């Protein structure tokens, strides 16, 4: 169980996130929605500790995540796998090595420096790729792949981390509709089959409606909605996206950032 209490982060005068409380149970698929600059990315990056909080606490199954340092922090990052809008793969390395980045915290230093991962690790990476229909491309350079394929490689990287949580930051915002569907379906399948908790930032409301059991709305760094998708009526949507956003009834379709 992930418990977030009074979490806040400021950048100088800018408040990216303030006083956020959120509890997520194991196996939930939570969609986080909000307009650009609302603080969605900040929230996920805080959970992985890519960003330090200026206030509040994050506790996971009794472990105080905000207090972790050094090796413990790295161990936590392995458990809270991130997926990024821009994939964040290493362009000049092949797909399999990119997936094996997810195993770095489990493999000896010298082996990682020589890119000499043990066969068992390689097998694990290939199997993860296989689940995402990407095993064929294992030996290609990552920058030769399409956006959707790169994102599936990034999901494979997250999978081999053997995480407890998947934190997906607008995973489909730079993808075409078909690739977007493949990626969302992959996340849904992992959530279902592995019982992994998924927190997913989304721009498009209809995507949240299709895949998320629960939706969290953030506006100007504050939580303004938390409930089942069915609770998303027009008034709530206005609260999340702001009044001046004249949103048609079935919400912004365009996933572009």
């Amino acid at each position, binding site marked *: 169980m992930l418990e977030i209490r009074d979490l806040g982060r400021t950048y100088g005068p800018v408040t990216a996130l303030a006083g956020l409380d959120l509890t997520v149970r194991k196996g939930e698929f939570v969609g986080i929605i909000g307009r650009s600059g609302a603080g969605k990315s900040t929230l996920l990056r805080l959970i*992985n500790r*890519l960003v330090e909080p200026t206030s509040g606490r994050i506790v996971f199954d009794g472990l105080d995540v905000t207090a972790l340092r050094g*090796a413990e922090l*790295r*161990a*936590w*990052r*392995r458990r809270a*796998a*991130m997926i*990024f809008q*821009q*994939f*964040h*793969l*290493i*362009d*000049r*390395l092949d797909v399999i*090595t990119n997936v094996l*980045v*997810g195993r*770095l*915290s489990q493999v000896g*230093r010298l082996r*990682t*420096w020589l890119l000499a991962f043990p066969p068992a690790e390689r097998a694990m990476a290939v199997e993860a790729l296989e689940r995402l229909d990407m095993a064929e491309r294992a030996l290609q350079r990552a*920058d030769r792949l399409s956006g959707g394929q790169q994102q599936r490689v*990034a999901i494979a*990287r997250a999978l081999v*981390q053997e995480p407890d949580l998947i934190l997906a930051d607008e995973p489909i915002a730079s993808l075409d509709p078909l690739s977007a569907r493949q990626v969302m379906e992959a996340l849904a399948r992992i959530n279902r089959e592995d019982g992994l908790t998924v927190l997913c930032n989304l721009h498009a409301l209809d995507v949240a409606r299709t895949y998320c059991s629960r939706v969290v709305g953030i506006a100007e760094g504050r939580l303004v909605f938390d409930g089942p998708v069915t609770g998303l009526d027009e008034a709530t949507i206005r609260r999340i996206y702001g009044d001046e956003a004249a949103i048609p009834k079935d919400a912004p379709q365009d996933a572009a950032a």
Partner: protein
Amino acid sequence: MSSDAVRLFETRRAEQIAARRRQTALFGVVFLAAFAVSVVVGEVSLERLATGLPRFFAYIERTLPTLSLATLGADLGRWFWNFEGWLRLLFDTILIAFVATTLGVIGGFLLSFAAAKNLVANPWIHHGARRFLELMRTVPELVFALFFVFAFGLGPMAGVLAIALHTLGVLGKLFAEINENVTAKSLDGVVAAGASFDQVIRFGVVPQVLPGFVSYTLLRFEINVRSASVIGFVGAGGIGQELMFVINQFIYTDISAILLMLIVTVALIDLGCEKLRHRLIGQESLK
């Protein structure tokens, strides 16, 4: 509304351009002043140039042997009487450059990560690394070589160490600057997976910066071959030591023979390195 924004933008832009002009003008004035002072202090005068230039050419002429078409083979043989010996010295020189470049690259590689602001949060570490690299860079190779000849005696070891330290200073800084241009994207992806600092370097940084590192290393090797041939002047081994000897002993034709071999060797190495470098860069742009 929008015309307000345009007006605001235009005033700001004009201010920016004016500021830049002022800066350029100031720079120009400073440059001219510095140039004038240098001319006076350095005793640069056209008169001296006019009297000195003929002497320069006379010296070069004196080093050239007399060759005649009839006895060309024998003449050349006499000119390059120590061809094999000099070749061996040239080879020594290249070896000095090679070993020194290798050592310098290793040191520069390791320090470049400590000297990159985006990789090291602790300001003490990256400032410390920066200052150290600066020091290694600003001390001329010849000065290092003098120290090392004093410490370790005459011979190539002093040359190797001198060039290696200077190379470390130069490449460490250049490498650090490449490191600072690494995109946060590739770093985030690796950090978020729970990698340790050295693993972040290995995966998030090294693959991206390696082509640049290789290119600078080859360029530096070219430069080091030239340095290695001069560094012998203070007794630090290689062809330079021999060149200094024949100059001091006024063995004129030997001077031209050695210089000719040196120029050809350096040119060949320059060409080779350049070819290799361009091939590597070409590969980059193909990506």
